[in-house]
């Protein structure tokens, strides 16, 4: 109790006529209260990071702690993917049901480490950094549910992003062991690098029953349109390199080729193009003098000259993305990030997210056979369009390529749009970059219709209490042949409207004293305009210098022959 000596000296002043015995008692009580307060405060107001730390210490969640599952040799293997699968045949839509938010619920299986009977893991990498990021992003999103019974879509935590690191048969067995597998129904697998040597299939080789595949590098022969989702191959440079957006416009080079493993047939073709067109083309390759490793991924060379990659991509208008062993190339992501227009030469390749993205606005697709005509084809594209494509390319990267989160959530949104098509995101929402979204004008009445006269119009007259002028307006307007209905809004709470008229009361309306054209009125209206413009974030009103008049308005022509005579005469 020595520590609270400070309090004891104050004690008498606070509580007079108190005995020492009591004093100690109170001091103890106060200390406890104070400590309690501090502790509570700690938990309440400490930055949120502490929560997760607390969480980790509590859970000790680490890859190495995940339970080990041993796969018996005889464990069942799923069937190979069924090429005829479509949402209406292989997907159980009842699991998604009707929900007012029109949002699917996604469940992620808890992490397990699968090993075969000898204890050898099914994958050489286990859970990869990227797949961990992807699953975390999904679990933080609105799609996520941890209630397996409410889920519409199931995502295994078995990482199949890269087929190279997988043991095909065992991975398939592991999938089949998932508690809700049920022939792969409503299961979604993410794979970016499919196939293996020598043929490199364009879809994941792991047998997977009816599971949906979000794959990078689908060809038109393996892609099940409307069922699978074509995704990009994530480029690790997206996270490592910060390339600020460059204003669209002409670049130093016209065409740039930066991929390092281009088939010699194509490299020869590119060399020929360079001979014909000279400086406009830059053909880079790997640097022979650099040692292998992460650093070499960031350098490219041309005749001994070293360039920084991916920075150099920003110096070219067009960047070649050629097929390699696989159709999907991580280079596409780098090229888009640099705001360089991708020139895609990969026949039969299903472009990433092609179900929703309009690639014609961001890229040029050229058949491989026409590689030699590439320069001529690209030269024929108008400058304005190149700039538009540059902007569009960068925006695609930002919105759909830049992180595993972006890739994962876009995939889920596409599946969501299929299940609730009437609530799907629109073409504009998917494809218009923010700058266009802000400035574009989409009239809700976009169809050019010239309505017939028959239904006429309804006149709405707002009035306060100037009954005389009101009656004059009514008399005049009721002479108009196409008037269908007249509605008078009586805007005076203190007086009831004159007899004989239909009542219309507007309780929210506040009484305004007779309108006048005085100075304050105009000032108020100017203030309104400024207020509105600031709320809208832009000034939607446009100034024009024309006015619509009848064709023969004020023409030297007999008035009685005019459809609308006497307009403008006072």
């Amino acid at each position: 109790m020595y520590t609270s000596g400070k309090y004891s000296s104050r004690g008498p002043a606070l509580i007079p006529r108190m005995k020492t015995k009591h004093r100690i008692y109170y001091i103890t009580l106060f200390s406890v209260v104070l400590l309690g307060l501090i502790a509570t405060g700690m938990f309440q107001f400490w930055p949120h990071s502490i929560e997760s730390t607390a969480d980790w210490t509590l859970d000790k969640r680490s890859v190495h702690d995940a339970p080990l599952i041993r796969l018996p040799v005889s464990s069942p293997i799923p069937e190979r993917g069924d090429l005829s699968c479509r949402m209406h045949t292989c997907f159980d839509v009842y699991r998604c049901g009707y929900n007012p938010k029109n949002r699917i619920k996604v469940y992620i299986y808890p992490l397990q480490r699968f090993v075969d009977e000898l204890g050898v893991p099914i994958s050489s990498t286990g859970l990869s950094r990227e797949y961990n990021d992807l699953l975390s992003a999904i679990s933080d999103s609105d799609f996520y549910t941890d209630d397996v019974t409410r889920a519409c879509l199931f995502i295994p935590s078995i990482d199949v992003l890269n087929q190279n690191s997988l043991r095909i048969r065992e991975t398939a067995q592991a999938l089949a062991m998932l508690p809700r597998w049920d022939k792969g129904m409503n299961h979604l697998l993410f794979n970016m690098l499919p196939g293996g040597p020598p043929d490199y299939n364009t879809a994941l080789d792991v047998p997977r029953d009816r599971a949906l595949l979000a794959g990078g590098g689908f060809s038109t022969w393996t892609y099940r349109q409307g069922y699978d989702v074509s995704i990009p191959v994530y480029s690790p440079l997206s996270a490592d390199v910060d390339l600020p957006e460059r204003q669209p416009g002409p670049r130093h080079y016209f065409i740039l080729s930066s991929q390092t493993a281009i088939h010699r047939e194509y490299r020869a073709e590119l060399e020929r193009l360079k001979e014909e067109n000279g400086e406009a083309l830059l053909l880079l390759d790997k640097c022979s003098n650099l040692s292998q490793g992460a650093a070499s991924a960031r350098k490219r060379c041309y005749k001994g000259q070293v360039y920084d990659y991916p920075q150099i991509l920003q110096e070219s208008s067009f960047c070649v993305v050629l097929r390699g062993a696989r159709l999907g190339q991580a280079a596409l992501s780098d090229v888009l990030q640099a705001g360089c227009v991708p020139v895609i030469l990969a026949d039969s390749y299903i472009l990433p997210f092609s179900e929703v993205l309009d690639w014609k606005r961001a890229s040029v697709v050229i058949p491989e056979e026409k590689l030699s005509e590439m320069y001529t084809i690209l030269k024929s594209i108008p400058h304005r369009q190149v700039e538009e494509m540059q902007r569009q390319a960068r925006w695609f990267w930002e919105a759909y390529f830049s992180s595993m989160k972006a890739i994962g959530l876009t995939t889920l949104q596409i599946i969501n749009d299929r299940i609730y098509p009437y609530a799907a995101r629109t073409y504009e929402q998917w494809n218009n970059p923010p700058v266009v979204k802000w400035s574009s004008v989409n009239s809700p009445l976009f169809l050019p219709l010239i309505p017939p006269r028959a239904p006429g119009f309804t006149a709405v007259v707002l009035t306060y209490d100037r009954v005389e002028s009101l009656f004059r307006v009514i008399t005049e307007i009721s002479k108009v042949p196409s008037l269908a209905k007249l509605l008078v809004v009586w805007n005076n709470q203190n007086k009831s409207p004159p007899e004989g008229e239909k009542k219309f009361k507007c309780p929210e309306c506040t009484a305004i004293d007779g309108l006048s054209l005085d100075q304050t009125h105009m000032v108020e209206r100017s203030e309104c305009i400024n207020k509105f413009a600031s709320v809208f974030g832009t000034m939607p009103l446009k100034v024009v210098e024309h006015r619509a008049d009848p064709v023969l308005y004020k023409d030297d022509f007999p008035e009685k022959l005019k459809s609308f005579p006497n307009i403008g005469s006072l």
Partner: protein
Amino acid sequence: MQAKKRYLILLSAGACLILLFCLGGIQVPLSRRGPSRPHDRRLSGYGPGARWRHMSGYLQPFSSWEQDRSDDLTEHISPRQKRDANSGLYTGKRCRMESCFDFSLCERNGFKVYVYPQQKGEKLSESYQNILSSIEGSRFYTSDPGQACLFVLSLDTLDRDQLSPQYVHNLKAKIQSLPLWNGGKNHIIFNLYSGTWPDYTEDLGFDIGLAMLAKASISTENFRPDFDVSIPLFSKDHPRTGGEKGYLKYNTIPPYRKYMLVFKGKRYLTGIGSDTRNALYHIHNSEDVVLLTTCKHGKDWQKHKDARCNKDNAEYDKYDYREMLYNSTFCLVPRGRRLGSFRFLEALQAACVPVMLSNGWELPFSEIIDWNRAAVIGDERLLLQIPSTVHSIHQDKILSLRQQTQFLWEAYFNSVEKIVLTTLEIIQDRVLLHTSRSNLMWNSLPGGLFTLPQYSTSLRDFPFYYAELGIKPPSKFTAIIHVVTPLVSQSQPVMKLLVAVAKSQYCAQVIVLWNCEKPLPAKHRWPATSVPVTVIEGESKSHLLVFSKSHQVISSRFLPYNTIPTDAVLSLDEDTVLSTTEVDFAFTVWQSFPDRIVGYPARSHFWDSNKERWGYTSKWTNDYSMVLTGAAIYHKYYHDLYTTYLPASLKIMVDQMSNCEDILMNFLVSLVTKLPPIKVTQKKQYKETMMGQSSRASRWADPDHFAQRQTCMNKFASWFGAMPLVHSQMRLDPVLFKDQVSILRKKYRDIERL
């Protein structure tokens, strides 16, 4: 002592409370991160139902750079060989353009379509005849198979239902004997019906080889993406050209009609496609959801009759199909025996938003049409949810869906010609991959048939997307003066015109189009102006020499000259009288209506019921439907459209007469925009010259001139299949025009001065 006790109790209570809070405090902040289930921690996050969390510890990247590269390097097979291998590997049901189509045939002559000559004794159905004549009338047609990129059979393949009277027998043998068949390569086969009772398979009953299918009711399973084309089912009464307009005349807000959802059709009781229709009664409520079925169809329906039939049949007869169609917000389009039905197009035309219940139907032109904008794609399995789904759709969305049905109906479906052209354009877009239309061009006004990607693939270069892209229309124009008389004096009207136009602040360039037999005058004879003046000689066509006295052709004024640097074109006749102010004003008006013709001399058309033909009038009337291109501003794109879109027959006719090119241009622009041109106010004096036609040379002095224009109107209307011109009663004047204010306050005051 009382106070002391009170303190004691109070403090103890407070302390207890805080202590409690303290102990519970660990959980309170955690619970803010969403639902935390009790079993969550118990299972340490690895059991079923555990929440997924980010894993700690070092993780490897999914791929390393070296490995990726080594993968690419291990490819030993040459890519060219691989491509060649594909074409042998992927045939039949796996056909794609890459493997089953020979692109090289399209390289020399572009996208040309050949139609086999009709064989003697071979009968063609009316629909197939319409398809063939649509192709033959299109700009893609070639009569030389050596030039062709695509081949169309003159054997009727539309109806492959063996029980149908239209069924053509021995098709297999007939096709095999065709010398150009080449295994079906680069052929397209049109089909509306396939299979027959009871299973209605999609087999055509002959080997189509490598040919593409343009087929109705095609299922996603059989549809070969980017190879086949799904077309709509249309009846034999579907008009060949022109086509009916959509039913929607004006928008109503709120957009609800008398019924929310309707259907009236057969119920099959047994066999394929009967499940959905048999279950419709579950959601029928005879109020806003009216779904009627009849059991009466075929000869022996009584045999399969079920308990509900009598009641259903009675209810069915109470309602009129047309009445329901036109008075419902949504129309149910369930599958029948086949996946597609006539009902689909009927609903589309009636502006009744289709609610699709036909699982696995590859919707018509799905490759290019975004059907979510015009229809509700339901799932047969979720029939019971349909009422709540359609009720949940917001008014704004209904309004937009409904308008889109009308746009799509008129753009791609209302005639056989549109359906055929759309099919061909889709294939052309695949063939000329890098000059193909973007999704926006297909799905917004005026639609893909009027946006030619050969002009530009950039949306900015067309007059239709300024608002959509949020960009301003161009700020400069190029004047093109069409000159037909030789230059003799410096006081000729054309000289004054040139000077006045060049003075406009919006003028970028003046192009003199020399369409005169006399040689070009020397450069110094043109007046000096601040903007560049270029003179180009009009094109002369040798084939016209036989018919025409003039070597130069009038259509050359609408050629897409690449010397036109701006998007806006001010088209002028040599005798036009215009002041700089008038030009300035007209241009500012055009900037508000960049897709329309904005100009001065207006004309009108009318239906002459006595002669049963269209009439043309230049009288002063209260309305107009044309603005002559002797003094008008429009978008450069229309030059391209005029030259490319219109058939040679019309252009030759115009060139032979040296007349009507301006009428044809007005037809074209109104066809695209569905709107009238815009007349702007003009100075009095100009009108008089127009009326008197005093200075007009040969062309206007010709007494036949006016009669020719009447003929033109009717020729054009018959080619267009309908009258595209639209009347307007509006003239656009400067804001203070002829108002009682000081003339000094008026910006365009010269227009009022006499």
